[in-house]
């Protein structure tokens, strides 16, 4: 406990007494107890679950690390890992590139910029379920307006979500539509806090706009870009809602990410133990990626 706390607690008591009379503890207790009950205890339980052969309706059997051994031999798991990272990589690349472009576009203080900033919020506020439904009709192979537009340009139509090879790029496109604005607004925050001195010095030295972008803007923006990347990574590695609405992991297993596979294992096939092992593995992957990116951010500073 901090000195401020004990000062407020007033009288000198034993360490335990001070703990229970500290206002800090009393104020934080309801939220703390709630979070421990709903997240910390279930987290411990899910580790235990992952070491059981637990089919809903049957008696669970403790099997140690058997689920993890099975996972290593499961082709759907390895496919899920591949799908997860493919979807992650192309979505993140698209969102950071387009996000940077639109942020720079918005950084010039034209009158329309404020209107566009408000418009950018609309995809962010929409439920992913509604976004998925919306793209189902837009991308419908037979009557969807996107295919109509593509064919009007003289290009061949596309199956989009129904295509085994096209489904991942299509899902990446949907996520890019919905969450690039988020990247834009974070990078824009970074752009608006850039110092002006390096630009003035560069202008005196006769640097071109392109040179200034690559040599000054981009290096100075790196921390904000990585912040955006961290937040998008967390969501992209756990990509679920839009996939489950539009394809439920199909066609075949073409869009069965780890999260989709773990969900289906637990709540469609009712293998709670195996699903727990998959979910924990996914959590560790997210954790490792975030730690790697955070280290990168520290290095960039």
């Amino acid at each position, binding site marked *: 406990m901090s000195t401020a706390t004990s000062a407020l607690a007033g009288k000198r008591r034993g360490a335990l007494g001070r703990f229970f009379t500290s206002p800090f503890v009393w104020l934080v207790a309801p939220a703390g107890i709630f979070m421990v009950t709903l997240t910390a205890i279930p987290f411990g339980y899910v580790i235990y679950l992952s070491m059981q052969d637990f089919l809903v309706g049957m008696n669970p059997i403790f099997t140690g690390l058997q689920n993890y051994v099975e996972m290593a031999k499961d082709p759907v798991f390895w496919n899920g890992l591949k799908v997860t990272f493919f979807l992650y990589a192309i979505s993140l690349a698209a969102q950071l590139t387009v996000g940077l472009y639109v942020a720079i576009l918005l950084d010039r203080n034209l009158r329309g910029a404020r209107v566009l900033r408000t418009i950018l919020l*609309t995809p962010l506020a929409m439920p992913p379920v509604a976004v998925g439904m919306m793209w189902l009709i837009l991308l419908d192979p037979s009557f969807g307006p996107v295919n109509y537009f593509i064919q009007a340009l003289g290009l061949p139509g596309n199956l989009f979500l129904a295509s085994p090879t096209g489904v991942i790029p299509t899902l990446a496109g949907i996520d890019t539509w919905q969450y690039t604005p988020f990247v834009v607004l974070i990078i824009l925050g970074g752009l608006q806090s850039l110092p002006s001195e390096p630009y003035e010095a560069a202008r005196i030295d006769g640097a071109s706009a392109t040179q200034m972008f690559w040599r000054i803007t981009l290096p100075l923006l790196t921390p904000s870009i990585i912040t955006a990347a961290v937040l998008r990574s967390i969501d992209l590695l*756990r990509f679920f809602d839009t996939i489950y609405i539009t394809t439920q992991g199909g066609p075949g297993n073409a869009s069965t990410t780890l999260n989709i596979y773990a969900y289906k294992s637990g709540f469609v096939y009712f293998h709670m133990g195996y699903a727990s092992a998959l979910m924990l593995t996914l959590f560790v992957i997210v954790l490792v990626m975030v730690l790697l990116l955070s280290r990168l951010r520290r290095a960039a500073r």
Partner: protein
Amino acid sequence: MNGSKFWRKTAQYLQYVVVSLLILLPIIWMVSSSLKTSSEVTAYPPSLIFHPTMSNYVRLFDTLPYALYTLNSIIVAGGSTVLGLLLAVPAAFAVSWYRKNWPASVALTARMAPGGLYLLPWYVIFTAMGLNGSYISLILTHTIITMPITLWIMSSFFDSIPRDVLECGMVDGATLMGVIRRIAIPLAAPGMVVSVILTFILSWNYFLFALVLSKINTTPLTVAAFRFVGEGITDWGMLMAAATVLALPPLILAFIVQRWLVRGLTFGAVKG
């Protein structure tokens, strides 16, 4: 204004228009499809001119229990928003007053866990307790989304109250609880409005927990929409009406909180 500057500005505005259209056209298509008759919705080439009709919405609420689904969404989002606020406001004050930093890191770690990680044990526990499918299970689970965000937003609102103001209250003999009730909370009231709106949006939009934990009579709009898609879509107009009913409330609320929406979504990553 010289010629080159004029063209540069025009090019700039042209890009603004393109970006805006890319964002808005899909949403306009969704809403306009919900106002078309079934033959117009699937017409090819797509019909751009049509007589708007509310018949899809009428059928949605007449043939399906959409009034109940809407009510369920309001109960779950509203309940978890209020519970989150009650739990988070005292904690946020404490975190701000005693200048603790750990809640941000706790929030970030909690945020990284896939929802399914908690959902698996919850499902087992709630089933054992007979709580599966109840409003209680839905409100409690949605509160793990609303509470940390409220905590985060409220603590930054409490941070912005000058310390002197609160310390004066304490010198005058008020208890800490009195200071919180009579000084801190009224001063941070705008933060509570922001938190309520923001967490209501996020709870309303959240899909996964209710997908598993809701039963027929507690199904919220997100899960109802998913079931609608899963039954094999034949009525696209009605489906787009369902999507619009689901998307409209958060869209309207988002315009009220604007810049806070982004801050709420970045929570845990950057302080303040």
